[in-house]
């Protein structure tokens, strides 16, 4: 049982929950740093080459205005170029060695178990009995990103800071005047997002491995279906059963219409229609756990099919800390009502599973993007002065799943279907350009507007299975090569394994004294790493004859220090167009070193970081030069006349 779940249950039960961070003192907005304002728009995954290309075609007039008046340049991204790593660089001005986020996925060397890198949930210490009920006590959730956020320094100098949907900031730092956590914020189950799909079809998806969601059978008879919605487990009941609540669907006898009933909520939906946000309450012994979801009626005949979004932490009554102050999450409902609080809300997993088709996915993603644009405009209207950051993630997620529509050479390119979608991604660039235009219209001459992205984007054509490569070269040994792979390294013979891959770019040595069953003596570490790096850089993809890896980055190359022991010994920078396998990332073995990428994830950026720069544009030249992400927060702080960021004591750790 995770601490996240326990906090949720505690809060929902109305029991006191100790705040993770104190509220920031409210500043006057202008303070000692003067009356300047800076607005930063964070466009996740906006690619430098793509912006240049669309700008040249005249499709991004507002970004072109920025390029003319303030500048437009590539922004060197992090090593590795993964969003949590890159955004942590932007937040702290430190590289991964200093902020401690090296990948989406880290591992505990004592247990060799992988975990999500940006936050950790601690389970409750005990359950306390109140009458005939029991309640969890002592759970918590902790942000694992280290280093000082730049807005903390702004606030110290009296600059009111609004930080909305910042990635790698869950739970929120508590040190900005206004904060809403972004990427890394889980759904109510504590996962990145787990949809539910209800179908009356017998044995649907039975032989398929579904990730990111659950398939549930529906009992459908004479136009009526009954089902159960499932929440998190209740840790204080024997067997920790999942919290649950019932729902019903009544299908019209003639028309493709159904009535959905969940508790006291009712919605009439046509086939192909999405509901608005439906508040759902999971009953608890005392009180209830409030969540929110949207329902999509996919079909009513011959089978009934209903998709349910991951259950969101309800912004109206958050069961976990997602904003500063606590009420800001509810305040943000003013323009749109409830909204996605889950960090990455575009449901790419439902698309991958075939639960949503491409058009249905795009409708969901489009709704998400539009809702956050409306929210941003509302925030902008209320922001008076100081510092404002707002994050847009739609471009990144849609680019991941539709990039082959821009690349006829991609192995998954479908010459019949894909040309119809070739303008979707450029269309989102235009939509974000319009956001910039709307911002320019509303700001005065005293405001600096900065547009930035964490990394660029490119086609992901070829897959390299790093653990298979290590196995082929004898660095990794299986206990029983003939045994079907159980995943998660469970068939690895650690007594004969010297190196393993984990995460999307990480390569670790099985180091004596660090890993649970480490065998590589520390004295041999450097020579072994150099040998592996040489071999990686000399490896060619047999299908193309081109190098598969173009960058081998040793942990000692990080400029900052303090948390190197958490991360990999070597970051593998795959050649542009090649990426590490998602299966290998969690210690699964596929039987081949290279393969075509045929998954519903044709675009990516987790490659040689030099090949996927982000963008930096501004309406006036910044007073400090910025070449890489780590330079940017110092330059933003300098706009307010604050001389040094990161502070000297943080730099001393370098």
């Amino acid at each position, binding site marked *: 049982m995770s601490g996240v779940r326990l906090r949720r249950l505690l809060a929902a039960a109305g029991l006191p929950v100790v705040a993770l961070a104190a509220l920031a003192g409210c500043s006057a907005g202008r303070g000692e740093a003067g009356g300047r304002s800076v607005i930063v728009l964070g466009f996740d995954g906006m690619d430098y080459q793509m912006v240049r290309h669309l700008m040249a075609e005249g499709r991004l007039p507002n970004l072109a205005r920025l390029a003319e008046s303030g500048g437009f340049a590539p922004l060197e991204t992090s090593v590795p170029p*993964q969003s949590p790593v890159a955004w942590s660089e932007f937040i702290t001005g430190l590289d991964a060695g200093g902020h401690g986020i090296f990948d*989406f*996925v880290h591992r505990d060397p004592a247990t060799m*178990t*992988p*975990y*999500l890198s940006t936050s950790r949930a601690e389970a409750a210490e005990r359950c306390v009995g109140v009458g005939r009920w029991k309640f969890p006590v002592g759970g918590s959730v902790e942000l694992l990103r280290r280093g000082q956020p730049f807005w903390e320094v702004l606030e110290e100098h009296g600059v009111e800071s609004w930080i909305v949907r910042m990635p790698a900031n869950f739970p929120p730092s508590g040190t900005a005047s206004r904060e809403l956590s972004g990427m890394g914020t889980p759904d109510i189950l*504590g*996962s*990145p*997002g*787990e949809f539910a799909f209800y179908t009356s079809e017998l044995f649907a998806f039975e032989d398929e491995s579904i*990730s*990111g969601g659950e398939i549930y059978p529906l009992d459908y008879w004479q136009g009526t279906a009954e089902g159960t919605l499932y929440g998190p487990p209740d840790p204080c009941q024997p067997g920790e059963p999942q919290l649950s609540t019932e729902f019903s669907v009544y299908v019209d006898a003639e028309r493709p219409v159904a009535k959905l009933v969940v508790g006291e909520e009712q919605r009439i939906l046509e086939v192909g229609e999405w509901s608005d946000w439906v508040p759902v309450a999971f009953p608890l012994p005392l009180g209830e756990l409030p969540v929110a979801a949207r329902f999509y009626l996919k079909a009513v005949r011959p089978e009934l099919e209903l998709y349910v979004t991951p259950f969101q932490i309800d912004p109206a009554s958050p069961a976990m800390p997602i904003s500063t102050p606590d009420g800001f999450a509810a305040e943000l409902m003013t323009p749109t009502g409830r909204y996605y609080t889950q960090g*990455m809300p575009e449901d*790419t*997993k439902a698309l*991958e599973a075939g639960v949503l088709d491409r058009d249905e996915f795009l409708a969901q993603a489009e709704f998400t993007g539009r809702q956050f644009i409306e929210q941003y405009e509302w925030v902008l209207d209320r922001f008076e002065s100081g510092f404002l950051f707002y994050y847009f993630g739609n471009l990144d*997620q849609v680019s*991941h*799943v539709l990039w082959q529509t821009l690349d006829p050479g991609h192995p998954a390119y479908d010459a019949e279907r894909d040309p119809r979608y070739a303008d979707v991604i450029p269309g989102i660039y235009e939509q974000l350009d319009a956001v910039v235009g709307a911002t320019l219209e509303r700001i005065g001459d005293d405001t600096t507007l900065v547009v930035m992205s964490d990394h660029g984007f490119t086609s992901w054509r070829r897959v390299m299975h790093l653990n298979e490569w290590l196995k082929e070269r004898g660095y990794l040994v299986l206990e029983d090569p003939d045994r079907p792979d159980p*995943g*998660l390294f*469970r068939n690895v013979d650690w007594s004969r394994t010297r190196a393993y891959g984990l995460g*999307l770019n990480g390569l670790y040595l099985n180091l004596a004294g660090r890993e649970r069953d480490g065998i590589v003596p520390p004295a041999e570490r450097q020579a072994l790493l150099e040998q592996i790096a040489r071999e990686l850089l000399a490896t060619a993809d047999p299908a193309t004859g081109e190098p598969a890896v173009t960058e081998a980055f040793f942990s000692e190359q990080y400029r900052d220090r303090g948390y190197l022991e958490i991360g990999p010994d070597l970051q593998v920078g795959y050649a542009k167009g090649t990426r590490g*396998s*998602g*299966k290998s*990332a*969690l210690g699964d073995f596929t039987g081949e070193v290279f393969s075509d990428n045929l*998954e519903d*994830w044709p675009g*990516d950026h*987790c490659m040689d970081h030099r090949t996927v720069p982000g963008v930096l544009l501004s309406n006036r030249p910044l007073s400090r030069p910025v070449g890489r992400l780590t330079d940017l927060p110092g330059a933003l702080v300098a706009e307010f006349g604050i001389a040094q960021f990161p502070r000297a004591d943080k730099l001393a750790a370098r």
Partner: protein
Amino acid sequence: MFGARIKLDKELIARVRRYSEIAGYSSPEEFITHALEKELAKLDGAESEEEIRKRLRGLGYIS
């Protein structure tokens, strides 16, 4: 021996008696309980690893 009866073959019971004594268990029941708990703990661990794997696969990046 158990709240619920479990049928074991005679030869196995004889071996349980013999080894429980050698290993210093106070009774064959204690030996069997310990052995079962150890095996079940392994299975519980595997389940929780599956839970972890499922959660990580919820990231679009990981298939």
